[in-house]
């Protein structure tokens, strides 16, 4: 069965809240019912079929076509099924997600994987600020699952991240791993300023020493062979990412910080 497909009719001026269009929420809904779903855009709400051409298909495999960076909350709270998006997506891609598969052929705006608990998000492009972050006032960002970004990440990737994995094939912006509580961020490219700022625990694994080096709020713990990295790389193997092809390494230079706080975070740089 082909995918249930939402093709955006025209680029709207206001953002569109797409949270109602997930496999969970559309399961067992008729096409007519789906067409009637109200989507908030600006200070109005509009019927789904006013904004999208809806093509019947498997509600457990949803496609968005002609999407752009104003489509927010795609994959909101989903626990199963998959959504794939042609184009860019807006903010909060995969917010609260617990399971299933989300992917976008394009860029995502801020808060990709915000407070996600499980499942997998793949951004085949660049992701905006606050990947896996926590909304203001909340203390825990993502607590499980995997976010893969094939391009570059914005600032504050993994801010308040508590568990799970963020794999960035390109470069990261500033403050990668800021206020990280735990979990793993792996980066193949370069990192911006203030790497690991206010990090409590967790691991930032780097394929190369960042151009800017490591800041003074991290102390060098020397070079080591860390056995657990073998397990980590094994776990990458089954993921659809260039990380599955990265040569395993377990020799790293280890930096511990941010010393301002409990200083239990680590930046591991391949040597």
């Amino acid at each position, binding site marked *: 069965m082909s995918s249930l497909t939402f093709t955006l009719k025209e680029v709207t001026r206001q953002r569109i809240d797409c949270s109602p269009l997930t496999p969970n929420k559309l399961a067992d809904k008729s096409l007519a019912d789906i067409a009637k779903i109200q989507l908030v855009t600006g200070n109005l709400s509009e019927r789904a079929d006013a904004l999208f051409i809806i093509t019947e298909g498997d509600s457990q495999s949803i496609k968005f076509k002609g999407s752009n960076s104003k489509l927010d909350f795609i994959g909101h709270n989903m626990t199963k099924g998959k959504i794939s998006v042609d184009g860019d997506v807006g903010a909060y891609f995969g917010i609260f997600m617990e399971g299933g598969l989300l992917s976008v052929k394009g860029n995502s705006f801020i808060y990709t994987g915000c407070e996600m608990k499980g499942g997998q998000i793949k951004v085949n492009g660049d992701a905006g600020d606050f990947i896996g972050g926590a909304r203001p006032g909340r203390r825990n960002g993502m607590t*499980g699952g995997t976010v893969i970004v094939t391009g570059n990440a914005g600032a504050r990737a993994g801010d308040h991240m508590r*568990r*799970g994995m963020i794999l960035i094939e390109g470069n990261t912006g500033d403050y990668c791993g800021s206020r990280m509580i*735990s*979990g*793993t961020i792996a980066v193949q490219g370069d990192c911006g300023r203030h790497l690991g700022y206010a990090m409590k*625990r967790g*691991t930032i694994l780097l394929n190369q020493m960042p151009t800017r080096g490591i800041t003074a709020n991290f102390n060098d713990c020397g070079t*080591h*062979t*860390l*056995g*657990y990295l*073998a*397990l*980590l790389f*094994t*776990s990458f193997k089954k993921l659809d990412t260039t990380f599955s092809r990265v040569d*395993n390494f377990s020799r790293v230079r280890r930096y511990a910080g941010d010393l301002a706080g409990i200083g*239990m975070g*680590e930046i591991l740089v391949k040597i």
Partner: protein
Amino acid sequence: MIINGVTIDETFAEAFPMKATRLIITAHNAKWAMISAQAFTGFATSVIACGCEAGVERQLKGNETPDGRPGVSILIFAMGGKGLAKQVETRSGQCVLTSPTSALFSGLDSEKDIPLGQNLRYFGDGFQISKVIDGKRYWRIPVMDGEFLTQEKTGVTAAVGGGNFLVLAESQSQALAACEAAIEEMQKIPNVIMPFPGGVVRSGSKVGSKYKALNASTNDAFCPTLKGQTSNDLPAEVESIMEIVIDGLTKEDIDKAMKVGIEAVCKLGSKEGVRRISAGNYGGKLGPFHFHLQEIMS
């Protein structure tokens, strides 16, 4: 039933339900993985006094272990989950955590689990690091040679302990040679261990004793030196008897192990002094698992 001149008694071994787990110890090389495994499984012959029965299941190549290093898989059996957890914890702490270059993983997935590194982590004194990889939690505990990596939990499964057979031979050296041959074959069978030293027991026991303090004592019915003093049916030419005890994850695993073990013994045959194969039981009243020798060999 007679195989190659060896009589297979029409009797059965009687075994008990136990709880078991499998652990994988890896190390810088096979030697150090084995050293740790042997320490872990040392003094673990019988639950009665050791708290558990444990043994090396087999050696693992790098491509068979979670971290890609040479390793050893071991099985540990105890009467219950709690006792098993306690043994796993103390032995892991004393024999794996301490052993150079080691890492420790669960070798058994199951619904129920017991702590593996969950409490060992406190050795890290706050510097321990938790990592969840593929849904499993690991602990990285800083130690003097680097980092001790251990999985947080290991699975627990229902298992069977106490499968056995007895090799009755004309001389001590022939009994031993027969048992060695059996053990060599049995070690190739997965999911079982033979927990006694070298896999062979020379002091089979019976339940009870004339001394109140003891609840088991020598199996006088199978002590050749007592042929004339106790009621037994040991043939005159049998001078030495040795036992192989098998713990396995399932009854079928033990079946297989016993079969290849007995076959190896019978292969030596009467010409190598092996006369009879028998088994230990308690009349079928105590253990729910019965291993009928003739059935196994048929």
